[in-house]
């Protein structure tokens, strides 16, 4: 790619407590703040919150689907996420952003995706980047 282009926002999930249980089981992250309202409240939260890595996993998938169409032959070499705001059961998460050309320190051509995950209110909950080389 030679110029920056949009990565359209796509709705990835509407979070449910079943998703949190499934993600906990699949990931091994059984921190009770994701599973038990009483524990979450005792730790200053309004109730259970989604695992940040659930949204990160969805963001990686959004990046991979875009790369399959627009950067085939390149492989994910780096992925970074920053968790900005909490995600709660009932939230609908959409992910999109921008793609731009880049170059590795060694001179290899890269495609860099700068992504945002937002909830149904438009609040940014996770930001991230994915590098395909």
């Amino acid at each position, binding site marked *: 790619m030679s110029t920056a282009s949009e990565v359209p926002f796509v709705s990835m999930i509407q979070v449910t407590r079943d998703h949190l249980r499934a993600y906990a089981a*699949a*990931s091994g992250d059984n921190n*009770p703040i994701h599973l038990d309202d009483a524990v979450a409240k005792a730790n200053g939260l309004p109730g259970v919150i989604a695992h940040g*890595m659930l949204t*990160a*996993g969805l963001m*990686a998938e959004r990046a991979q689907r875009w790369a399959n169409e627009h950067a085939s032959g390149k*492989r994910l070499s780096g992925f*970074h996420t920053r968790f900005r705001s909490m995600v709660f059961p009932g939230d609908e998460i959409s992910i999109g952003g921008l793609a731009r050309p880049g170059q590795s320190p060694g001179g290899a051509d890269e495609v860099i995706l700068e992504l945002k995950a937002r909830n149904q209110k438009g609040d940014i909950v996770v930001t991230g980047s994915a590098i395909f080389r």
Partner: protein
Amino acid sequence: MSIRDRVGEESVLHRKRVTAEEIKAFAAAVRSTVQGEAPPTYMTTLRKGEFELFVKLGIPLPSILHAEQEYTYEGGGMPVGCEVEFKSSFKTFNQKRGSSALSFLAFETEVFRVEPGPRERVGTSLTTIVVRGELQ
């Protein structure tokens, strides 16, 4: 010994087989369409060493929020059926003092595919967590 003095502590070395069932369950949870190998963030399932360090450092799990996560990928990934070894280390500690004090701790996990050989690094994970309050 203060928590700052414990930077550098390591978990034990863990080893596990990456099974088709585990990949299938993880891929379903994150809506992944990746075929035949682990999705990119599957590396989060290899946090056993981090959890071990949380216990050693006396940080209660429910007090932990995930602040940042970074992965670098090398080699050929984690295909179904491979075996990996991984170990975590406590990398950095920073504190924001005051009435709304926060403690930031970073943990690095290095992952190597060991079967089928030869041993090859498949990636590195850097997890930053935040804990409310000042840790001693």
